[in-house]
């Protein structure tokens, strides 16, 4: 259901997404101040009665209103660059999970330990249970340990897809013939949802991603159980 929450960013579940939310709010605050200032100036210019026909230039004010926006831009650019490089940082990963985009489902491979893989299809409307989210829940979730550095290797088998989880600030194209890497750290348990974000054909809207974040000890148990299947 669409609620007012959907106009905002999702709640963050990773330190990087938290930083991105802060940056978003910071930039939005600056935008708001500029809008108010410019709106006020335009309003007063419309309605004031002062006029001076021979006014051609005012060096002082022009210097001020050239430098001030430049300073404002620096206040946006520096935190932005900091985040850009922070997002690129590859920390020493604990697990590597491979995901392959197909028309129209994701498949996952865990090969650090033994080697197992599964496909993850959306639960169709007709088979939905009351607790499922429409168009978001899948039959086999990606199980991931929290508080651990995860490395995702993303690729595709047919056309370009895009693997996305907004709560972790993850969005990366799955390109056939190319392996893309992204790393993230989840700081809590829970279910996190995302959708394919590169238009990939008829069922593009029906290949969601569901991540289940569990504690590392349960994750190791799950791994050994899956290996014994």
């Amino acid at each position, binding site marked *: 259901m669409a609620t007012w929450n959907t106009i905002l960013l999702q709640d963050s579940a990773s330190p990087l997404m938290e930083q991105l939310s802060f940056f978003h709010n910071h930039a939005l605050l600056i935008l708001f101040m500029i809008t108010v200032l410019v709106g006020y100036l335009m309003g007063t210019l419309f309605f004031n009665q002062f006029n001076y026909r021979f006014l051609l230039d005012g060096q002082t004010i022009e210097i001020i209103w050239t430098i001030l926006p430049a300073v404002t831009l620096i206040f946006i650019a520096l935190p932005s660059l900091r985040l850009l490089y922070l997002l690129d940082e*590859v920390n020493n990963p*604990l697990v590597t999970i491979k995901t392959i985009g197909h028309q129209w489902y994701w498949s996952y491979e865990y090969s650090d330990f033994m080697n197992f893989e599964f496909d993850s299809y959306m639960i169709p409307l007709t088979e939905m249970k009351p607790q499922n989210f429409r168009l978001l829940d899948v039959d086999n979730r990606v199980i991931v340990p929290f508080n651990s550095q995860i490395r995702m290797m993303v690729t595709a088998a047919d056309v370009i897809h895009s693997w996305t989880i907004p709560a972790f600030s993850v969005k990366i194209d799955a390109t056939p013939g*190319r392996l893309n890497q992204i790393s993230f750290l989840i700081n809590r348990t829970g279910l996190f949802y995302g959708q394919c974000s590169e238009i990939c054909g008829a069922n593009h809207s029906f290949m969601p991603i569901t991540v289940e974040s569990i504690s590392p000890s349960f994750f190791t148990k799950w791994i050994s159980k899956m290996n014994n299947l």
Partner: protein
Amino acid sequence: MPAALKSTDVLQTAPFDPRFPNTNQTRYCYQSFLDFHRCQKVKGADYKPCDYFKKAYNSLCPNAWIERWNDQLEGGNFPGSV
């Protein structure tokens, strides 16, 4: 890191490799595959340290790629020089 993970040596994966600092890791996967077979060629099939590369390419490469390359190796039409 939780103690539960440190105690088990189950959770281990290919480390960050400074030769491949970018988002594109295609080369890391391929190079590891190549290195494994080169290592085996030089040191023989049951030389334990070669398994490092095997673990690396198994962690990184999609299984479909590994299968295709193995088929090519068997068929003698693998494009890389092992």
